[in-house]
């Protein structure tokens, strides 16, 4: 079946611009996660959704970062006024219910480059 998909696969933007990154989780998965993979910080958790709610946003690095999920499916991560340190690969993952026993399935990521 279809896995987690993300778009765009690559995004190049200028410093100060806003960007939106999209994630389509596996159908039927209620839990959705955003992670970031960067050279300096490695792989780090950003935010967790259960359905359309985000009970844990503890990993968002600043108030320039926000995310939403609609219809219990698609999620959008928005970065406002991008900075060069935002350059990274943004990964989305989904799991069936969010329990620890559920495997998190990762998408291919969006590579963001801020010039």
């Amino acid at each position, binding site marked *: 079946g279809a896995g987690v998909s993300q778009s765009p696969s690559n995004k190049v933007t200028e410093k100060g611009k806003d960007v939106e990154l999209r994630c389509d989780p596996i159908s039927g998965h209620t839990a959705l996660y955003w992670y970031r993979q960067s050279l300096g910080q490695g792989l780090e*958790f950003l935010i967790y959704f*259960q359905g359309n709610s985000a009970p844990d946003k503890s990993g968002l690095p600043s108030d320039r970062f926000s995310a939403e999920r609609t219809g219990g499916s698609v999620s959008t991560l928005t970065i406002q006024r991008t900075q060069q340190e935002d350059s990274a690969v943004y990964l989305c993952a989904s799991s069936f219910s969010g329990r620890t026993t559920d495997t998190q399935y990762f998408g*291919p990521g969006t590579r963001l480059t801020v010039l």
Partner: protein
Amino acid sequence: AQSVTQLDSQVPVFEEAPVELRCNYSSSVSVYLFWYVQYPNQGLQLLLKYLSGSTLVESINGFEAEFNKSQTSFHLRKPSVHISDTAEYFCAVSKILTGGGNKLTFGTGTQLKVEL
């Protein structure tokens, strides 16, 4: 706080040789441990996981890892590697989040390079 340490950033090995990728964790609570693999230009894939029960867990492609509570380790091993095993391997520990869900904390990764 939970954390994961992967001491080896790169491990070169010849094909058909055995390999061990080291992972140590720190946690004050029960742990759930994972190994993920990232092949070149691909996303992260779960290789194996330890949740409870038998301390030795295996993957379908010949890798195994053993949970050792006394040494706080979860090393990944394969008795004979293949060129196709060339990839980056990430060890991770899970933490239960507010409102359910579980956050993965990853190590810095080990690049396994299999040479002929």
